[in-house]
């Protein structure tokens, strides 16, 4: 990570030929009229105020509320609780550890199955094969759907008695039929497959853009040097797509932390489908409204999310400053 001082240097000053631009920019700042200054402060001020009030203030409040006990009714009833909520969720709250485990499984499934599948599809479709555009449209179609709708569509597919899957397996209507979204021993897998349906298409799209951006002379050079297709891809093309790879890693981690809609649509994230994000909401809208407990869960989610966020930001903005 670059130092804070470095981050504060405006990117313009670091651009090639920065000297000239820096000087004229400096000149322009001096030439700003009073009216310009008012316009600029409104341009920065209004969006910043909204961002602070509706994104960062609530984030800080989540942290604050996680150390209190509150039923969400009267503001005067907020009582300090120390680390009680954290002790409660880690020691006495049964769904917590299953939720952590499920979030982790979700991440592994997306990282080891959905993402490589998307990459494979992109590599295959990047060759000029016939029907490539049609295939791309098909694989990409689920990306346009909301995860909530994906939950409904797969529910129709997974149902015990009238779902297509059990019919294909020949178990529909028999006692052996599995309720794919209802049975707590299999529903997490069924939900992860539904999520893969969307994630792989998204990854495919990003890699297709990435592959087009790889300098063709790199491949030619590799093939002249006698590299076969696998070597060319894994040693030359894949490393050349480093910026896209970073974005994909970050998206995969963040998607697995955000996994909410699918499980919430299926059964509100209970009975085998516990996820951290769903537990936060259960404690917010459920009876009793234990805001402190919900906030402690939100903080756990926040702390884990900060890892990929900081990684991404330091890559993106760090590089910008060094360039």
């Amino acid at each position: 990570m670059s130092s804070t001082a470095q981050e504060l240097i405006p990117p313009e000053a670091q651009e090639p030929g920065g000297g000239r631009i820096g000087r004229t920019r400096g000149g322009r700042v001096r030439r700003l009229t009073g009216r310009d200054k008012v316009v600029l402060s409104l341009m920065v001020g209004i969006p910043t105020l909204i961002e602070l009030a509706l994104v960062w203030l609530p984030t800080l409040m989540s942290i604050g509320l996680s150390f209190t006990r509150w039923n969400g009714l009267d503001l005067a009833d907020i009582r300090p609780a120390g680390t009680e909520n954290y002790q409660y969720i880690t020691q006495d709250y049964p769904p917590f550890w299953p939720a952590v485990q499920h979030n982790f499984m979700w991440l592994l499934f997306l990282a080891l199955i959905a993402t490589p599948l998307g990459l494979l599809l992109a590599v295959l479709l990047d060759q000029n094969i016939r029907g490539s555009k049609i295939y791309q449209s098909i694989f990409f179609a689920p990306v346009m759907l909301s995860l909530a709708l994906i939950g409904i569509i797969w529910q129709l597919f997974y149902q015990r008695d009238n779902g297509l899957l059990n019919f294909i397996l020949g178990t529909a209507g028999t006692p052996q039929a599995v309720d794919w979204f209802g049975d707590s021993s299999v529903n997490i897998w069924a939900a992860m497959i539904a999520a893969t349906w969307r994630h792989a298409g998204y990854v495919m799209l990003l890699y297709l853009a990435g592959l087009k951006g790889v300098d063709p002379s790199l491949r030619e050079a590799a093939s002249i040097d006698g590299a076969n297709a696998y070597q060319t891809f894994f040693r030359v093309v894949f490393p050349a797509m480093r910026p896209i790879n970073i974005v994909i890693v970050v998206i995969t981690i963040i998607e697995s932390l955000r996994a909410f809609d699918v499980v919430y649509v299926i059964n509100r994230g209970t009975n085998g489908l516990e996820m951290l994000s769903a537990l936060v909401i259960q404690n917010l809208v459920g009876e009793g409204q234990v805001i402190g407990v919900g906030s402690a869960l939100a903080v756990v989610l926040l702390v884990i999310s900060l890892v990929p966020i900081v990684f991404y930001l330091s890559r993106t903005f760090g590089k910008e400053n060094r360039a």
Partner: protein
Amino acid sequence: MSTTPARTVRTGRIQAASAQRTGSMPKRHYGTHIFLLVMAVMWLIPLGWSLYTALRPVASTNEHGYFSFAGDFNFDNFVQAWTQGGFATYFWNSVIITVPAVLLTLFLASLMAFAVSRVSWKFNVTLLIMFTAGNLLPPQVLAAPLFEMAKHFEVPYSFSDSGNMLNTYIIVIAVNTAFQMGFCTFVLSNYMKALSADLTEAALVDGAGIWRQYREIIMPLCRPAFAALGTLQVIFIYNDYFWPLIFIQSGNRLPITTAINNLQGEFLSNYNLLAAGAVITVIPTLVIYLLLQRQFVAGLTLGSSKG
């Protein structure tokens, strides 16, 4: 000149290499095609099954079962979902939320992006980091405080029948805007940074103020970015399930994406109707995708191109 022979040799070798590749192509592509075909069929099954179920009246499936080709096919389920299922209302609610949210997001993000990318100020990068990071947070992290803020923000009953900001479209629009603004600011600022500095320099010489530089020079040049981001944001906000779930309590004010979950409870035994509801919900995104595919794809990749 002296490099010409060497280059010819090199080109020759490249041609030989690519000829070799072409030679082995049919064999490799045979397997590729089978794999892609199988995957494509698997990919289409869930959607196809929903459409098939939606097209069959519940009477046919009751009589012949779900796994048959017998009986009628018609659009009765769609008509029923649209009229009795309340989909006309839900769809309109989605429009009321999506249109202002997208316009506001793009407008505010363009102001912010202009300021941080075209004017030199020492807090530019800090602000940009704050906006980008905000968009990457899981929404659930902010849900409880935002819900309480809306609940304790009292307004006259003439303005909202709940007496606070809960159950209003405004809070859903505002939070969606705040959340999406970060991403749009990030993308637009990258786009504006790539525009030549001379453009605004020239305007400055002509005595154009900041607002005219923004309005008359930078905005028109950003049209492609706006088209891509606008398409993307329409789909993002239309597809948003979470914020209305938190803020909207009366069922008839829900947008379509959140409302369809209620349908699941209401029509538990009528999967045909549920399928029709799902297909109706897909249609707007499908239309946008077919009409503006290039914009949508551009929007998705814009954010990642500058990684």
